[in-house]
């Protein structure tokens, strides 16, 4: 099994070159905001291990929500280049340099700490940001596997269509046997999964055990602190300002312009963490929990009740005073927000209630995202348009990918009862 990893290069943009950078990024797009896989500047499609990637200019218009004397108000505008890939992220960066180094140099030359004579790979490493938490829809499913499974699905669909009349009269197991026969003769190739890297496996198991152990050791202290925490929390929750006006129509139009060109969309949002240690430490603790759950629990198709997210991450910037959130999700933003509000409001509240202006929460879990209109305004207002977005498998949702994986897994089961075969056939 090949685990997924992520990269994010973050660097301040030279203010005088922002316009030029925007124009340059625009040349990479086929449809608005949608990368042309073979574009000349950075040919995303040439990287067979790359699932999703984006270039986004992090221009945070909500910095004005900060107190007037806060130096963070002068924070720079960043360029972020981020993505998710199979295997090591460092190897992916190295491959970028090999195959698209010139384009990347031209892009990063618009950043204030870059110069054309630096070692590009080392510069990208030096400007990399590790996320505080991340989510992968299906840990271990590679781009190559996704492509092969989609080809398998297409082949099965074709067999079924060609032999529809004959197959309609057969019992499920007989149909399955016929399909297996057809695949043996005419099926697409299937690469066996690569061995799981030992290092990754060890660290994964260590994390699985160590985090609960640490929690257990700390639990007496956490229990003693809990009532104090709740008091501190309620003090803040009842007085923190809510800043959720209706977002500017032009801003929404810019975002809408680049949405729904595929069955999936990108989402990038940026905002400031509420000042003080209380909120930061709460956030750090929540991210530990979240990261643990996405590593060990939500690894096959769902993040709690939400099944539509391909990849997501939460990353601090500016000495953990600002938080960047990026995700890749299926459906329109309204469906995404519907999921947020009706399925996982508690989860959003845990994280984002520590952000300036978030709708009022109660005990960190309730309220917040459940305040429908305020929440939708807050979210849209903090959203930043992604200039260039790439997804290696346009037209496919997480549900498509999960279906294809189940079809392949079902194909390899040595034996099926008629009812199991029926359920398996119904997937096709």
């Amino acid at each position, binding site marked *: 099994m090949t685990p997924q990893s992520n990269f994010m290069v973050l660097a301040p943009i030279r203010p005088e070159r922002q316009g030029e950078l925007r124009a340059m990024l625009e040349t990479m797009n086929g449809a608005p905001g949608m990368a042309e896989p073979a574009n000349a500047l950075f040919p995303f499609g040439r990287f067979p291990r790359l699932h999703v990637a984006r270039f986004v200019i992090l221009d945070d218009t909500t910095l004005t929500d900060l107190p007037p004397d806060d130096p963070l108000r002068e924070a720079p505008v960043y360029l972020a280049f981020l993505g998710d890939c199979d295997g090591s992220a460092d190897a992916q960066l190295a491959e970028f340099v090999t195959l698209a180094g010139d384009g990347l140099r031209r892009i990063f030359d618009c950043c204030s700490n870059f110069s054309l004579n630096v070692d590009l790979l080392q510069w990208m490493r030096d400007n990399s940001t590790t996320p505080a938490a991340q989510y992968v829809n299906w840990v271990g499913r590679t781009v190559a596997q996704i492509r092969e499974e989609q080809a398998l699905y297409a082949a099965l669909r074709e067999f079924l269509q060609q032999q*529809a009349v004959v197959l309609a009269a057969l019992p499920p197991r007989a149909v399955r046997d016929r399909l297996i026969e057809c695949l043996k003769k005419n099926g697409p190739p299937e690469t066996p999964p690569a061995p799981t890297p030992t290092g990754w496996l060890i660290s994964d198991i260590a994390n699985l055990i160590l985090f609960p152990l640490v929690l257990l050791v700390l639990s007496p202290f956490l229990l003693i602190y809990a009532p104090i925490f709740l008091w501190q929390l309620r003090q803040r929750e009842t007085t923190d300002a809510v800043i959720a006006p209706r977002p500017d129509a032009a801003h929404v139009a810019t975002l809408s312009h680049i949405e*729904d060109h595929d*069955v999936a969309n990108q989402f990038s949002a940026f905002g400031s963490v509420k000042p003080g240690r209380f909120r930061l430490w709460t956030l750090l603790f929540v991210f530990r929990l979240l990261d643990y759950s996405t590593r060990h629990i939500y690894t096959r198709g769902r993040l709690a009740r939400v099944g539509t997210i391909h990849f997501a991450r939460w990353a601090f910037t500016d000495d953990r005073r600002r938080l960047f959130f990026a995700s890749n999700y299926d459906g*329109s933003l*309204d*469906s995404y927000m519907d999921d947020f509000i009706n399925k996982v409001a508690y989860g959003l509240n845990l994280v984002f209630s520590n952000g300036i202006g978030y709708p009022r929460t109660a005990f960190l879990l309730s309220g917040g995202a459940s305040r429908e209109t305020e929440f939708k305004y807050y979210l849209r207002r903090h959203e930043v348009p992604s200039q260039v977005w790439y997804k290696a498998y346009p037209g496919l949702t997480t*549900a498509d990918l999960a279906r294809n994986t189940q079809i392949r897994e079902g194909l390899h089961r040595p034996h099926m009862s008629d009812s199991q075969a029926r359920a398996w056939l119904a997937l*096709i």
Partner: protein
Amino acid sequence: MPLPVTELADIQGLVHSGYSNLTDASFLLLRIIDAAAARAWLADAPVTTAAGRDESTVLQVAFSAGGMRALGLAESIIAGFSAEFISGMTGDEGRSRRLGDIAANAPSQWRWGSQREPDVLVVLYARPSADLAAWRARVVSSAFRAGFEILQDLPTSDMNGHEPFGFADGISQPQIDWQARRKPGTVADLDYGNLISAGEFLLGYQNEYGLYTDRPLLNPTVPGATALPQAEDDASRYDLGRNGSYLVMRELRQDVRGFWQFMAAQASGGAAAIRLAEAMVGRHMTGSPLVPGTRQISGIDAKDIAQNGFTFDDDMDGLRCPFGAHIRRANPRTGDMPGGRRGLIARLTRMLGLFHPNLQEDLIAASRFHRIIRRGREFGAMLPPDQAMNPDAPDPASGLHFICLNANITRQFEFVQNAWLMSAKFAGLGDESDPLLGNREPHPPGTVTNNFGMSSPNGVTRRICGLPQFVTVAGGGYFFLPGLRALRFMAR
């Protein structure tokens, strides 16, 4: 708790009733040519309210955002309406994309509503005995003509409760909780229910979240504002939205011959063609559902159980009603959580997503946040299926003036249209859009959306491929159907 709706005399009658006995109808799309004259006519227009009973004639008036502007309403007041209403149905190409209004459905192809939405929509109904023409002549008086230019006079025809393809229509509607009998968001909502908060259809009342939708709230200093109702959630301000509703209108042209000839080509014989069409709809032509109605469901009256007393939990394999059938998409009848009401532990494990037995589970949003009240009327000639299957049949030039009412256009009408009807990925399906309404455009390029699958007992999906477009959008707009006091305020 939500509060009951008592101000029926302040609510336009369409919210309360579809006036199905008033079978003659026409829709006038207007441009305001003289604001003062328009206001003068509106000030005492005989608009029918929900308090009336047994009317013979009905007049309803609704405005687009541009229409309110043309009437002279201040921009600061209009800004209080929802963003999608202000922008309009065609105001954003992203919205058109989400609604499926591209290619043949693109606003550039429309007969009306593409460049600029009409300012005003006037709805006229009459009993056959009351003479619609005479009623129209009374409404379209010289005072009316001084204020308005008629852009379109959309006629309708009475198809006796059927839509042009021949199916009984308008069978499933949400029931508005006028008396505030139900508190939304309790464990009862884990199951599907059909009794929906008044605030989902009327502005100024609590919606399914127990909250109030955006609308213009005016300070008492605004001239005339104090004649408006006080805002339920802010006693210091006056509510221009209260008792009003957003009215979405779309002219849908139905290719009746194309529809039935396609069915006939796919099936052997007329009866099989009808069965195929019924599978696509999810109901028999008579209106009875393919999944028999036997359940008691809140908000579904005893006499209506045969037609609507079912959820799709009664057909988990899709053997009776295909997963992509129109009625599954238009109202999936989902509760807040798959599996409905369970014990506390089961609920917690489901909430945390620790347990999901199958792939399709939990892919569809809870329906109570996405309901609309439909008030459409048909137009054109009726052509029965057996005649429509004949290649020489005349074009009946028929269709539906789709009208729906809701309080949050984006969360209700647009969501249903985008996530449920147009989406090729509804309920985990791969490459089909609504069998009736889909525009069949590949999305994204290279990915088809023109199939229709039907489950069969041995598990093999029977697929009809290459569905043509049966329904084409020819016009549309977002309107606000104000309460009576709001109407008089706008007419000041």
